């Protein structure tokens, strides 16, 4: 199968999933106890105000019509307006999404440059001790509540040592250096779990590959050890990492909610938490829809990359 055919077929499966996701997110509103207009009215619950809200947001129309209106606008980039500030939800997301993406990408990079080499070293060097060490580190990385890790890092590096700022995000176009300094702790905190997952995976994949025939052949040819490991073994061990990294990307989006809260970073995670407290349901729905769409797209990109680098898939 060629790449185009595979891509088209894969995109074909995305459409029904996106449709189902959007229906679920739309139906969230039905969970509100009682009349959503009543919930939105807050303290000014006069019949006129409620009627006005009902008409303004289309609550007086049947559900399928409400959904069709909502999704029709969403497809065109209109996710409604914040009930609180009346700002367009799309605009709120557009201003916060790049911040979250930068944080997620930094976290992923940190996880890649620490997790993969650690996994390789643990597989190549002393097998038993390496295995135990990797197990301990990766299980700890998976188990530590990373928002607590963030608080502890603030305690150490900001409060005690005074090396890094605990908050105060600066956009990269204003001051890139300052931007990276404020993001380094959040990125480490967010990347911990992914690093642990990558380390565990890389070690077990490397152990399996290092026992295969073609590695023995490479050794027999007299190639130096580092070349066998990096060129022959690691290359194949890394193929599934692509899928793993895209799956973990969903975790980064989830984790960013807490990380942004701890370090006061004005990203999409902080946007959704503030919206929850303000009962700004349009913003909540918008953020969830965008997060899900991003995650689905990342998985698509991951699958396509996997298809490109893995010759077996093309057979």
């Amino acid at each position, binding site marked *: 199968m060629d790449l185009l055919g595979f891509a088209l077929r894969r995109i074909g499966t995305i459409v029904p999933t996106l449709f189902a*996701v959007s229906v*679920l997110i739309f139906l969230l509103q039905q*969970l509100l106890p009682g009349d959503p207009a009543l919930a939105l009215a807050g303290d000014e619950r006069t019949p006129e105000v409620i009627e006005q809200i009902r008409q303004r947001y289309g609550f007086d129309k049947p559900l399928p019509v409400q959904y069709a209106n909502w999704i029709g606008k969403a497809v065109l980039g209109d996710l409604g307006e914040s009930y609180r500030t009346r700002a367009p939800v799309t605009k709120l997301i557009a201003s916060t999404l790049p911040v979250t993406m930068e944080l997620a990408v930094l976290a992923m990079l940190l996880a890649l440059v620490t997790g993969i080499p650690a996994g390789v070293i643990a597989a190549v060097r002393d097998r038993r001790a390496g295995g135990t060490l990797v197990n301990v580190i990766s*299980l700890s990385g998976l188990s530590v*509540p990373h928002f607590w890790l963030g608080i502890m890092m603030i*305690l150490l590096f900001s409060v005690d040592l005074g090396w890094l700022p605990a908050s105060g995000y600066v956009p990269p176009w204003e001051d890139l250096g300052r931007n990276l300094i404020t993001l380094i702790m959040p990125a480490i905190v967010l990347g911990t779990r992914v690093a642990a997952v990558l380390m565990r995976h890389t070690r077990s994949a490397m152990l399996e590959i290092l026992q295969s025939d073609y590695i023995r052949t490479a050794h027999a040819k007299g190639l130096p050890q580092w070349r066998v490991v990096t060129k022959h073994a690691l290359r194949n061990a890394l193929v599934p990492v692509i899928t793993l990294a895209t799956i973990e990307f969903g975790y980064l989006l989830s984790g960013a909610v807490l990380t942004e809260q*701890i370090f006061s970073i004005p990203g999409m995670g902080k946007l959704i938490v503030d919206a*929850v407290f303000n009962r700004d349901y349009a913003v909540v729905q918008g953020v*969830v829809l965008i997060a899900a769409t991003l*995650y689905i797209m990342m998985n698509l990109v991951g699958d396509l990359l996997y298809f490109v680098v893995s010759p077996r898939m093309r057979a």
Partner: protein
Amino acid sequence: MSVTTAGEETLERRSRNRALRRFLRRRSAVAAGIVLLLFIVIALAAPLISPYNPIATNFLLVRKPPSALHWLGTDEVGRDVLARLIWGARASLLAGVIPVCIALGFSIPLGLLSGYAGGWIDSVIMRVADAMLAIPFLIVAIALTAFLGPSLGNAMIAIGIAALPTFVRLARGAVLSLKSEDYVEAARAIGNSPFRIAWRHILPNMVPPLLVQACITVAAAIIAEASLSFLGLGQAPPAPSWGSMLNAGQRYLAAAPWIAIWPGVAIFAVVLAVNIFGDGLRDALDPKRR
């Protein structure tokens, strides 16, 4: 018939004993089990062992460091941190178990229905599960709590619903693979009703994969509850929960770091124990996957 049933039961018991022996050989998993048991005992015995009332404030004792009277110090309104930690174990452990019960309770019938009925019922259930899996776990939980309203109960429901699709997929997969097993075909051939087959032959064999997933999910659910409570979407103050203690602790990090340290240590210890226990359980139940 009675002969085969007796034979079946001996076989079942034997394989269960084998799994138990395999589990007991893994010392780290057994140790993790003991740690978990300890936390459960602490949670159950909270009224007996807690040194102070966890919600009684005392403005003479605001943010006092650890001392002989208050081993782990006091918090921002003079409550004993150790007492809150002990009582908070209840919220955290419940939040680990109840969402998993919700997910299991719904996923087993849904998985059986999906795997057995096939056709459009299967397609609808699977599309919805896929759609839920497309939204990152904690974001589903946050969105659900937003609409249900913040409380510990709603946080647990939200986490349970967020965990549901993984369980449904697993249950359905188990049903599909078990459906074509020889012994199930045989049971059908001798005229057993679908309900009896599901109950006697399929359900017991769905348990191992679901049990392992349940363990993983308990760990995830404890962290998720702590996260929601940390954000202020879970346990309502003044009732103690490890997540909400961390929230308060962060605000007084410079002046009273002990408020934030211990709840995190407790979460870490419980989740680590659950994960090690789960690893041991997986290896014992499914030695092929090691």
